[in-house]
């Protein structure tokens, strides 16, 4: 029987606790942003520009006098929306492609993989800039850029799993038991191929947040004055060398904590899935 002990004890692991705590903070920020943030996140108030952190503006203000704390709180919505949307769409597209390409290895499959190679070998930020230039500076453009990166990634992961799974005896056994191709692909293989995908989901959300920030940083992200962490760092970037540290520092920290929470959760997911992972019992 699967022993419950390791699973239960792993719920108390500090990594998991920190990960969940950070995630909870983000969820609170998303839901209660208007109540938490003391100021409007998008209204310029140039009179108050570049204030160091103080009692009114806890994390200071940027060049236009926008309250950094309020913007960070509201940005959680934008950043996580992009991350979740990109990952969800990529999963929906990438996983079936991966299954099909892995199961029916053929010319089309090879072509698809080569195309993925191309996309993946394309320098990320240049691809991003070009796409955003074509599609316009919208949240959805960023999501599409991320999907271009994640779909091949998920497909590849699934395909690799499928390639090895399809040779496993239990597939032959299922065929003996009368399972057709469709049942084999989606009932037998897919559930077994999901573990690395699930682990990757969380990692990808983190990656999405980082990439979104990076894209915004070079001006290919969302539209100002929408609060977005990367954009906020970028607006403070110039001044850093002149000693204005708070504008870039705090949103950067938000990125770090957010990505960290997903990294921790992904690692814990891997661990949890591993304990229930097959191991021959002797």
């Amino acid at each position, binding site marked *: 029987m699967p022993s419950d002990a390791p699973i239960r004890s792993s719920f108390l692991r500090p990594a998991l606790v920190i990960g969940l705590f950070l995630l909870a903070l983000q969820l609170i920020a998303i839901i209660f942003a208007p109540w938490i943030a003391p100021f409007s996140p998008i209204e310029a108030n140039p009179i108050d520009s570049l204030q160091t952190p103080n009692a009114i503006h806890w994390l200071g203000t940027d060049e236009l006098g926008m309250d950094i704390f309020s913007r960070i709180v509201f940005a959680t919505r934008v950043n996580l929306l992009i991350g979740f949307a990109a990952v969800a769409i990529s999963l929906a597209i990438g996983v079936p492609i991966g299954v099909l390409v892995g199961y029916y290895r053929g010319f089309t499959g090879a072509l698809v993989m080569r195309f993925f190679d191309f996309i993946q070998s394309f320098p990320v930020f240049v691809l991003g800039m070009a796409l955003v230039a074509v599609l316009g500076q919208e949240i959805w453009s960023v999501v599409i850029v991320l999907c271009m990166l994640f779909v091949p990634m998920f497909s590849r992961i699934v395909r690799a799993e499928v390639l090895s799974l399809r040779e496993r005896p239990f597939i032959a*056994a299922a065929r003996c038991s009368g399972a057709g191709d469709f049942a084999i692909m989606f009932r037998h293989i897919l559930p077994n191929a999901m573990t690395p995908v699930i682990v990757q989901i969380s990692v990808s959300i983190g990656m999405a947040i980082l990439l979104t920030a990076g894209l915004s940083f070079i001006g290919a992200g969302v539209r100002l004055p929408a609060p977005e962490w990367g954009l906020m760092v970028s607006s403070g970037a110039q001044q850093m060398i002149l000693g204005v540290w708070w504008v870039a520092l705090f949103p950067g920290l938000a990125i770090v904590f957010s990505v960290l929470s997903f990294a921790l959760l992904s690692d814990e997911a891997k661990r949890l899935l591993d304990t229930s992972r097959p191991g021959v019992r*002797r």
Partner: protein
Amino acid sequence: MSQSSEAPIVELDGLSVGFGDKTVIDGVDLQLRPREIFGVVGETGAGKSVLARAIIGLLPTGGRVLAGQVRYRGQPVSTMGPEDARAFRGGKVALIGTNAKALLDPVARVGDQIARVVRSHERLDKRAATARAVALMREIGINDPERRARAYPHELSGGMAQRIVIAMALAGNPDVLLADDATLGLDATVQAQVLESLVERSRERGLSVLLVTHDLGIVRHYCDRVAVMKAGRLVEVGDVEPFLAAPANPYSRELLDAARARPTLQRPLAEDDRPPLVSVRDLTMHFAVPGSVEPIRAVDGVSFSIAAGETLALVGESGSGKTTAGQCLMRLLDNTDGRIIFNGRDITDLRENAFRPLRRNMQMVFQEPYVALNPRWRVRDLLAEPMALIEPMTSAERARRVAELLEAVHLPTALAEARPHELTAGEQKRVGVARALATKPSFIVFDEPTTALDIRVRAQIIDLIRGLQSQMNLAALFITHDLNSVRSLAHRVAVMHLGKIVEQGSTEAIFERAEHPYTRKLLAAELPVDCEPLPPGDIAA
């Protein structure tokens, strides 16, 4: 042969080892004398491997010595400093583990690996060490050792890899060899060769050997003294001959009886003129190897037929093509050539969709019990899956049928909710059998249903199949290299070697009047507990 007068080389004194709060070795006293070969037997999980590792002072992670100590020539192993301990391992006491392929560094040439050990115990330059390695390889019976020394582990057969591990063990010139199930998983013929050279080398060099094994046959053939281990305790220690004649402990007796059981042979079925249920003509299966012109001829022109209710055993060493032949029969592989006729119908070229309805009549029990079950599915679903082949069923009917199947293979109904990894290997095998039975087929391929199981579980599975045979008038292709089970199940036997059937006949004829030399070699490699040892040359030939 025992030299009770001399001081023991290795001495265990009330040794207890635990993992967490589980005690795995429980107060073991044992003395290994110079130049003796000491057998340790016992079923899986008895603590044999842990014992061997405790002696060398390298417990698996998490293991702790709870009490007692190990002494080498009087010196407690635990008091050695790190450098002494290192020199001690391999230099005084060497360990030969199970599954040699995993024990070799996959990306280093085997000669270098042996040389590495040589240089760890002796100041030698690389060339001299390599020369020594080659000499060791020759000593252990490897042909053309200069060339083999440059091979990587994956280029070696299991037997050869095992010899390399033995050479590594000998490289530090130890006094004591600990052989932990060193030949497990090897073919009987190879096993005999490897053990033979191991024992020969040890005797030549005057080493003491602790031979851990499951197989009482091995003990009988090679050991001077024997210990029976059960749940971390030595239940009986003594010289081999008196032990075999009259084991004192009831558990020892049980083990010995199971090993001795020698079923009566199956009689061939009465001849009749009905066409055979399965008939295979010139079955050929070649695998293209990427990057090589020559394909692997896994099955190379095999013909046989099986009548309804008849069991044909397909025996032969590992890699001879037995599984491949069985899978071609089930159309899991697309055979290169030859015809397969089932129930009067040529199924060779049927497409999967056309063939699917026929699957209810032919089923297969897969070789590896665990990997043939989808790890994410519950037993209930695994058993229900093939039922879709029969007719639509309500879920209640299906549940009833699942319960019936579980009962048929002597599994508790509660297991329906379990997932494969929650089952023991024996239970997994039985689920595999139940799954094959779900559609009430007329023909089943059993692929090695008894390997890798403990002696006692093995007997249970054989009983189960035997029961099915008589109840359901089942025809079967019984693939195995366990000759004992062939005796008890097969009406006829086909011997396979390098993709070809070299000999075929009734079970009796094969076991008693084998004609082909390969068949004879196969039969001879079985080390029975109760017959005279064969002259070594006969096996190694």
